[in-house]
C-alpha cells in the first residue's frame, strides 16, 4: 500500500466518522432545543384547559382541545386503517402466496402509494369531502388520515407476516382448517408482536401529520364533540400559535411541540417494549 492510498483511506475514515457523528449530534440538538424551549412554557393549565377568550392574545387557557382532538383523530384513523389493512396483508400472504407476480405487483403499488406526499392526500380528501357533501370535520379528517397511513400499516404488517414459515400454514391446513381460518387465527397470532408495532408506527405517523388534516379536519377551540364537527389537532395548533406575533402565544407553540414530541417518543418506546413482550404466542422454528 502506497503512502497516498493510506492517506486516502485515513481521510475518508475521518469523514465517515464525522458524518455519523453529525447525524447523532443533530438529533441531540433537535431534541434538546425542543425540550429546552418547551419545558419553560409548559404548565398544568396548558394540558388541562381549552383556549379561553383571549387565548390567542396571550390570555389564559390551554391546548386540551388539540390534544384530545389529535388523539381521537389518530386513533380513529388507525382503527380504520387496521381493519382495512390487516385483511390485505393476510390475503396476499395466504390466498396469493402461489402467485408471486401478483403479490409483487400489489407490494409495488403499495410502495408507490406510500411515497405520495401527505398534502396530496389532503387535497384528495378535500375533493372527496366536497363530493360526499361533508364539512371540515373529525370524520373527514379521520378518513383522509386513514388513507394516508393505510400503505404504512399494510406494508409493516406484510413485512412481519411474510416471515412466518410456510410450514405453519401447511400444518394448519393438514389439521383441516381453511384459508381464512389459517389467516386470521394462525398467522395473526404468530405475528402479534409485529402487528402491534405496525399499529403504533401508523398511529405515530397519523398524529404527527399536519398537511393532510389542514383541509379536512378544520380547527376549533372546543373539545371534539361529534363526528361531523370540526376538530383541533396538535400539529395545526403548533403551526397556528407559532404564526402569532405575540411572544406568549409563540412560547405555547414550543410547549405544544414538546407535548407532541413526547407523545410520539412514548409511542415509539411502547412499540419497542410491547413488541418484545408478546413473543409468548409466537412459535419458534
Amino acid at each position, binding site marked *: 500500500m502506497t503512502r497516498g492510498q493510506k492517506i486516502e483511506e485515513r481521510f475518508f475514515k475521518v469523514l465517515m466518522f464525522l*458524518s455519523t457523528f453529525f447525524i447523532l449530534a443533530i438529533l441531540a440538538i433537535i431534541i434538546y432545543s425542543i425540550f429546552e424551549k418547551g419545558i419553560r412554557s409548559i404548565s398544568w393549565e396548558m394540558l388541562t384547559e381549552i383556549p379561553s377568550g383571549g387565548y390567542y392574545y396571550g390570555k389564559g387557557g390551554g391546548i386540551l382541545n388539540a390534544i384530545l382532538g389529535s388523539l381521537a383523530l389518530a386513533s380513529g384513523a388507525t382503527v380504520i386503517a387496521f381493519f382495512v389493512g390487516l385483511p390485505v396483508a393476510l390475503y396476499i400472504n395466504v390466498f396469493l402466496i402461489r402467485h408471486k407476480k401478483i403479490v409483487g405487483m400489489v407490494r409495488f403499488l403499495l410502495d408507490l402509494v406510500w411515497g405520495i406526499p401527505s398534502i396530496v392526500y389532503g387535497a384528495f380528501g378535500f375533493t372527496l369531502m366536497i363530493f360526499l357533501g361533508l364539512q371540515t370535520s373529525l370524520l373527514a379528517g379521520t378518513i383522509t388520515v386513514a388513507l394516508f397511513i393505510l400503505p404504512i400499516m399494510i406494508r409493516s404488517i406484510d413485512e412481519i407476516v411474510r416471515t412466518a414459515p410456510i410450514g405453519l400454514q401447511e400444518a394448519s391446513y393438514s389439521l383441516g382448517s381453511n384459508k381464512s381460518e389459517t389467516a386470521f387465527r394462525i398467522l395473526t397470532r404468530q405475528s402479534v408482536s409485529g402487528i402491534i408495532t405496525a399499529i403504533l408506527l401508523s398511529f405515530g405517523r397519523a398524529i404527527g401529520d399536519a398537511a393532510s388534516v389542514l383541509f379536512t379536519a378544520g380547527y376549533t377551540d372546543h373539545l371534539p364533540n361529534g363526528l361531523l364537527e370540526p376538530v383541533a389537532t396538535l400539529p395545526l395548533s403548533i403551526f397556528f400559535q407559532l404564526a402569532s406575533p405575540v411572544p406568549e402565544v409563540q412560547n405555547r407553540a414550543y410547549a405544544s*411541540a414538546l407535548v*407532541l414530541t413526547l407523545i*410520539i417518543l412514548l409511542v415509539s418506546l411502547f412499540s419497542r417494549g410491547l413488541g418484545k413482550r408478546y413473543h409468548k404466542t409466537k412459535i419458534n422454528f
Partner: protein
Amino acid sequence: MYILNRQQRHFVNSSWMIISLLLVTLLPFFLFFGLYLKSTYLLHDYSVFDLIFSKTWKPASGQFGFYPFIVGSIWVTLLAMLFTAPVCLLTAIYVTQYTRKIVLRIMHPAIDILAGIPSVVYGLWGILVIVPFISKYLGPLFGIKTMGYSILAAAFVLSIMIIPFILNILIEIFRSIPMELKEAALSLGATQWQTIKQVILKKALPGIIAAFGFGLARAFGETMAVLMVVGNVVKLPGNIFDPGYTLPALIANNYGEMLSIPRYDSALMFAAFLLLAVSLFFNLIMHFFIVKYNKY
C-alpha cells in the same frame, strides 16, 4: 357460540379481504383521477405548457403561473439532496463496513426517532435554530442581508428530515451485499477502502441511485416544515439566501380562500396533481433501479 357456521364465516372473511384489497389497489387510481378531474376546469381554459412556464401568479385576475413555485421546489429539493447525499452515503458505509454491530444498534433507534419527529416540529426547530443562524452568521459571512427565511433554510431543514429515510434504504442495501464479494476482493490484496471503492460501491450503485431518488421524491412533496421556513414570497429566487415558495406550500397556504375566487380551487388541485405525478414518476423509475440491483 358463533352465529355463522364455518362456511359462512369463511365467506364473510374472504369477502372482507378481497374488498379491502380492491380498495387499496384502486386507491392510487382514485387519487390520480380525482385530482385530474378537479383540475380539468383549469386545463379547459389554459394549456399545461402555459401553466407550468408562465411566471405571473395572480389568481384574482385569472393568471395562474406555476413557474416560480416549480422552480422554488426544485431549488429546495436539489439543495437538500446536495447536503444530505454525501452525509448519508458516508454514514451508511461507516456503520455497515467499518464499525462493530453495536454502532448499528445505536443508530437504528436514532434513525427511528429522527423519522418519527413530525414535520411541524422540524419546521419549529428550523425557525428556532436555522433561520437565526442564517440571518445572523451565514448571511453576513457572504455579505448578504437576509431575513433567514430562505431557500437555504428550507433546504437545510429538509435535508435533515430525509436523512432517516435515505439512510435506512442505504444501510439495507450495503448489508445485502454478499460477504463473498468482499472476501474475494480482500484476498486479492485490496485494502478495505479499495474494496469499498471499487467493489462494494460499484455493486451497490443502482441501489444507491434508487435510495437518493426515493429521498428526492419525498423531499419534493414535503409541506409543513418547508412552508414554515421558506419565506413564501412568489418570485423567482436569485440566490439561495432569497425567500421562495414551493408547490406544497402553495397548496397548504391558500386552502382557506380557494373557494372564493373562480378556478382557484382547480388551480390548487392542479398543483396537487403535479405533485402526485412527480412522486409517482420518480418512485416508478427508482423501482426499476431496485429491481436491477436485486437481479445481479
